[in-house]
């Protein structure tokens, strides 16, 4: 079947198998491989992206279901100005180690802060209950999200390299 949707600000039209999962569409068709597959049961959140601005697990969304919608992935967060505030906070607080859960975790955090800009620590932990990490013990991830929340949207740019993509506000 043919699907038309917007990915990171670019309109796309592709011929795909009806059963193609959105995560595989993003990775294999769009070449956006930051989001990862980490489980079989919609448990781990490593595949988290934004669908019309809301965090979803793209392993449990058919590409067909995203037709006519806007998908945003981690690759779109940074800009010429530098890392997105959430990304910068993750670096600042050492919120990533092996990095496998990170793109999904960051998108979940972006989604969380869009709905709750000033979460408590408990709200951050609950807000990330759908994202599993084996390396960090979550301690620094929580600090990173709280730091990003304190910085607010458009907070201090980071020291990292940016990407030539559209900026997504927190």
């Amino acid at each position, binding site marked *: 079947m043919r699907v038309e949707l917007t990915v990171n600000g670019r309109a796309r039209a592709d011929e795909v198998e009806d059963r193609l999962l959105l995560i595989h569409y993003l990775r294999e068709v769009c070449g956006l491989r930051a989001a990862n597959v980490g489980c079989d049961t*919609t448990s781990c959140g490593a595949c988290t992206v934004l669908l019309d601005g*809301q965090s979803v697990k793209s392993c*449990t969304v058919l590409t067909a*279901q995203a*037709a006519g919608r806007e998908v945003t992935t981690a690759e779109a967060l940074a800009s010429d100005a530098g890392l997105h505030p959430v990304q910068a906070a993750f670096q600042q607080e050492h919120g990533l180690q092996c990095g496998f859960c990170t793109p999904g975790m960051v998108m979940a955090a972006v989604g969380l802060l869009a709905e709750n800009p000033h979460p408590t620590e408990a709200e951050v932990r609950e807000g990330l209950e759908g994202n599993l990490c084996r390396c960090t013990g979550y301690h620094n991830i929580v600090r990173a999200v709280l730091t990003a929340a304190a910085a607010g949207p458009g907070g201090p740019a980071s020291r990292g390299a940016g990407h030539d993509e559209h900026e997504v506000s927190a």
Partner: protein
Amino acid sequence: MIPAPFDYIAAQSADHALGLLATHGDDAKLLAGGHSLLPMMKLRLATPAVLIDIGGLGELAGISADGGDLVIGAATRHAELAASELVRADAPLLSHAAAQVGDPQIRHRGTIGGSLAHADPAADLPMALVALGGSVELRGPGGTRRVSADDFFAGFFETALEPAELLTAVRVPRQPGAGWGYEKFTRRANDWAIVGVAAVGGRIALANMGPRPLRATAAEQALAGGASPAEAAQHAAEGTAPGEDMHADRAYRQHLARVLTRRALERQLAG
């Protein structure tokens, strides 16, 4: 893991979906949020040849008041239900239950219709609907009918839905200001309930104490007879024969049912 091959059809309307169901029969399944069905398909526990997507149908969305009932479109996402001011005011147990389902990403996709039709006895919304004494509207080739929550859940992942029927809306009585209690016992925050209890307006519903959400009728009767939460809760597990699994054997489940019922009733009493 990925689903077996199927044909995807985006329904243009509820009637269109019904027509497709009639045409394809057992080969077809309805897709709304997909967060009950797609996980099963990815594990190949379900292998429909046709998926009919009703998730985007406006006529199945929306939350409104209709006299003494709230009417919630079947395709309403859990996140929307949890955030609805109307539901929080008039049936807060339902918005609370919706906020307990899975995690934020799941709540952005899963729908109340899908969750009820899936009928997992450990899930939040079936139990909540039974506690609230709500009902579902089912539309089929023969017309529309309303089925009470008590009658809708037939067994393990089984409902009163006929093969060619579509769950279009959910109705719950409006009870602004009514006390309620909700206890969901899990090991991890986003697990399904090992045992769940929902109490409101003299009704007590249990999750994961049997193949479908159960009413703790003995406890309800005790309560109606003037018993305290602690006394009524003693009867919470009467008549239940819960299954056993890694998390709980029968004795422990029944014990949990009593403890959680007492706590739910105390919470309800506290307003």
